[in-house]
């Protein structure tokens, strides 16, 4: 993953994908898209295929609150409901689309919209509660598996940094730093001291190793440029 971010030949996509198009086929994660909402219908196709194969799998589409504004999202809710597709529409709601607030963008409630398509809706208000998220999501996945009905899971969360980059942007004025405080209080990295103590070392070691691998890896050569094109 780090080698991919570094644009190295040894990256998961030989450096051709970068941060915006990460994928991990070994764990069943297909290609991600920078164009918001583009992957949502992909999940429906994979789900349809898994239905034909009768393999009992559930396909999850992960996208943000802004993606629910795209026409394709509405088309996908319609199709998933119409065809009884085992899809979980997982919506991470951080209230922002780059620098645009939710109230500037949406006239609807996602819950009402979901119900319009006769799809079940669940909301997790504290997306920082790792154990709660795991429990709720597992339950929904199991229900999808059993019923082959799609579901929407909206997880409220927070974006403490800027849209792209390593800094915060509260000083720019489009949002208030006060709203971060309650989220910071719930952040498991601060709350769960015993987990941090137990896992910090091995995680840091894993990251260090991945970064070393990335830094020592070669860049792709020019010969790589025209590969994988028909």
């Amino acid at each position, binding site marked *: 993953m780090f080698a991919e971010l570094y644009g190295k030949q040894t990256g998961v996509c030989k450096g051709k994908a970068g941060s915006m*198009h990460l*994928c991990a086929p070994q764990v069943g994660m297909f290609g991600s*898209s920078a164009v918001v909402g583009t992957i949502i*219908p992909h*999940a*429906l*196709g*994979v789900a349809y295929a898994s239905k034909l194969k009768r393999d009992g799998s559930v396909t999850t589409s992960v996208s943000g609150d802004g993606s629910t504004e795209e026409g394709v999202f509405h*088309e996908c809710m319609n*199709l998933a409901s119409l065809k009884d597709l085992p899809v979980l529409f997982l919506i991470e709601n951080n209230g922002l689309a780059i620098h645009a607030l939710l109230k500037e963008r949406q006239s609807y409630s996602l819950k009402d919209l979901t119900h319009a398509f006769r799809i079940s809706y669940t909301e997790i208000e504290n997306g920082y509660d790792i154990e709660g998220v795991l429990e709720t999501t597992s339950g929904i996945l199991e229900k999808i598996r059993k019923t082959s009905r799609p579901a929407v899971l909206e997880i409220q969360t927070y974006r403490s940094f800027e849209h792209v980059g390593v800094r915060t942007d509260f000083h720019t004025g489009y949002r208030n730093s006060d709203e971060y405080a309650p989220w910071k209080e719930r952040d498991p990295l601060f709350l769960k001291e015993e987990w941090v103590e137990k896992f910090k070392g091995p995680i840091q070691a894993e990251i260090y190793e991945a970064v070393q691998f990335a830094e020592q890896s070669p860049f792709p050569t020019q010969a790589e440029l025209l590969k994988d094109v028909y």
Partner: protein
Amino acid sequence: MELTYREAIRQSMKEGLSKNPKTLIYGLGVTDHTGIFGTTLELAQEFGNERVFNTPIAEDSMAGFGVGISLGGYYPIHIHIRNDFLLLTMNQLINSVAKYKSMYGGLFEVPMLIRAVIGRSWGQGGQHSQSIQSLLAHIPGLTVIMPSSAGSVLRTYDYVINQYRAPVISLEHRILYDYSFKVPGHEADVPGNPLDSFVVRKGKHATIIAVSVMVQEAQRAAEYVKEHENLDVEIIDLHSMTHPREDLILESVRKTGKLIVADTSWESFGVCSEVARIVATRDPGALEAPITSISMAKTTCPTSKALEKFFYPNTADLVNAIYRLHFGKENHGRELPSESWMNKNYKEFKGPF
């Protein structure tokens, strides 16, 4: 054997389903009683509605659905009754389908076939008559074909569905549907890659590079000038917009020195532009005269029949182009095919659907 273009497509669809249990066919109207102008009739009944099905009017998501189907190990054939509707799928086609293999470093492939019809005549109007091959062919990662005969359909669709691992868009001309062809045809004369361009008629006085229904027009024009002026025109079916045989094109232009490009769409940034680019960048000296472009008038297709006849090029335009090149002047004084001659040979679409 004689087969209509429509029959060849239907046969290819049926074989696509029977030879490969992973093939799916879907689109607006695929399962209704008209069956995409007869090309998907009865297939849902025979192969089941899990594999052959109708869709909501939601081209964008259905195009993305195709990506997922392909990723899931199935082979989607998505049919649009007009290629104008592909415009609603452009985000998926260009930002996803075209790039899925290369952007992810070769980890995935998304083989699929998208069939879309080019409408013409009986008042199709601006949004049911376009021919968007150049918009799609411009994008690396897409394969665009325009089969011009029943034999071409059979050979190319079989290859694309069963062997070729890339996403393919095939534009089928509505006018060709009722034409009867001898099968196999010229496409079988040249062995090798079924995507390749091929020679339809050998000649020496001029070269016509044509696509789709214009291959028929070119043949009519060639027969006319042979009969009237004993001229032998060479015709090449470009066949694949994205993977043409450049060497074949250049060989012909070197031989005749005179080039006409007959396209089903507009002239700017189109097939003519692309063929001209190939010749100009590789061997401009092969030309003895400027290239002639035969294309739609540079405007939106009008619905009125009175205007429509000025919108599309006809056999007379092609014959005129051949005479102007051969005799070296605009006023060549030779007789062009008459309206009645052209109407006799031109199987017009009786409409409305």
